[in-house]
């Protein structure tokens, strides 16, 4: 792991039963960069992100995040994870959800931080409404607020643009641009190549659990998002 790496992945294998979902994956992610993690359905993107988030353990290999083990408390304090599920409680209000996660992440003033993030995501008018009464777009914006609430140094986003409405996409893109400008690191798996490649500084392509490509995002990729799959994708 080089000193400038935020994430170092060395020879990671993961099995589901006998099936190897990840096969000898190795790469680094520079601090302050945005890595677009690409691949077809079932390629292993979510599995890798779950291991990075400390939700699952690799069968073999080594991962260090910001110089620490992914399950270390200090590491988790600095990670913001947005997975397939929105990770907020239906029976709590938007404010109660954010205050809860603020407390769990040890945010200095959870009430104030929750209020600020409700304003930033345009949910301040439904602050005390229960999540079960929210539309899909509102839920997604709340999930984005939960993910960014504690000022994470590393953002792990699993298909973050899926099912977002226009407003939520705009909110998320602005937040991601700001995060990058502030020097945070982003790893984002996605099928929405155009949105992802516009933000990404680096690209990794996984084909059936194996690393097919790892490098900087180029203008060719930006002009023709299918270029990477044609040159490095599975046959």
């Amino acid at each position: 792991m080089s000193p400038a790496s935020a994430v170092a992945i060395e020879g990671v294998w993961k099995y589901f039963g006998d099936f190897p979902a990840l096969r000898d994956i190795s790469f680094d992610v520079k601090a302050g960069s945005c890595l677009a993690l690409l691949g077809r359905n079932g390629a292993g993107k979510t599995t890798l992100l779950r291991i990075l988030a400390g939700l699952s353990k690799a069968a073999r290999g080594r991962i260090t995040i910001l110089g620490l083990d992914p399950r270390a408390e200090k590491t988790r304090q600095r990670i913001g994870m947005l997975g397939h599920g929105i990770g907020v409680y239906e029976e709590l209000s938007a404010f109660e959800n954010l205050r809860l996660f603020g407390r769990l992440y040890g945010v200095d003033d959870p009430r104030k931080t929750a209020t600020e993030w409700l304003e930033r995501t345009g949910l301040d008018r439904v602050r005390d409404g229960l999540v079960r009464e929210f539309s899909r777009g509102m839920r997604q914006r709340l999930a984005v607020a939960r993910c960014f609430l504690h000022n994470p140094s590393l953002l792990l986003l699993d298909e973050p643009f899926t099912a977002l409405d226009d407003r939520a996409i705009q909110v998320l893109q602005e937040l991601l641009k700001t995060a990058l400008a502030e020097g945070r690191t982003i790893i984002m798996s996605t099928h929405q190549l155009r949105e992802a490649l516009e933000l990404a500084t680096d690209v990794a392509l996984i084909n059936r659990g194996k690393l097919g490509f790892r490098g900087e995002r180029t203008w060719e990729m930006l002009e023709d998002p299918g270029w990477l799959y044609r040159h490095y994708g599975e046959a």
Partner: protein
Amino acid sequence: MSFLGQTLAIAAKDLRSEVRSKETVNASLSFALVILLLFSFAFDPDSDQVREIAGGLLWLVFAFAGTLILNRSFARELVNDCLDALIASPVSGAQLFLGKCLANYALLMIVECISLPIFAIFYNVRLPQRLALLFLVMLLGTWGLTVIGTLFSAMTVNLRLRELMLPTLVYPLLIPALMGAIQLSTVLIAGDTLGEQNLFWFRLLVAFDVIFTILSLGLVEIVLVG
């Protein structure tokens, strides 16, 4: 925020969700009442037989109704992948487990405290003068049920047959605690004095609670993450 503060935040979250949805307490309480009612048809409420089996009857009701609450403890976290959000947060497995235990314990005690007087009415049992001692037995026995049930609730959360698996796994492990709670409750409800032999059951209950609390705290991280 401190270890205790984060633990209490998880417990408060579970209790607040339950107060709003009422999904487990209503189900558990209804189930307890139905069992009490059905068993009351099987026995003559005036017979001595009832007093002899009162403790057993009471704890069977508590254990059956309790698993309904325990089953939902981690299952409710599956909605919106909230369990992942909790595991990915800096909260330790022990804090998550203890927070869940505290919420479950409170809910179980509510169901038990409502069921107890109804049991007394249905079975014509006079609640003991030493009600505080019976309450102590309930506190100790229920903590054992809560700890084991919460751990196995986490273990079975991703199983399709978790409603069946949880009681199948929990009841055999609970036998020592249930034996202690049943023996002590029977003696107290019958109005007999507690002798040296009964103190053994008290010690057993305390030891069971301490041992399984420590074991569960040590195992929960493995259960949740692998």
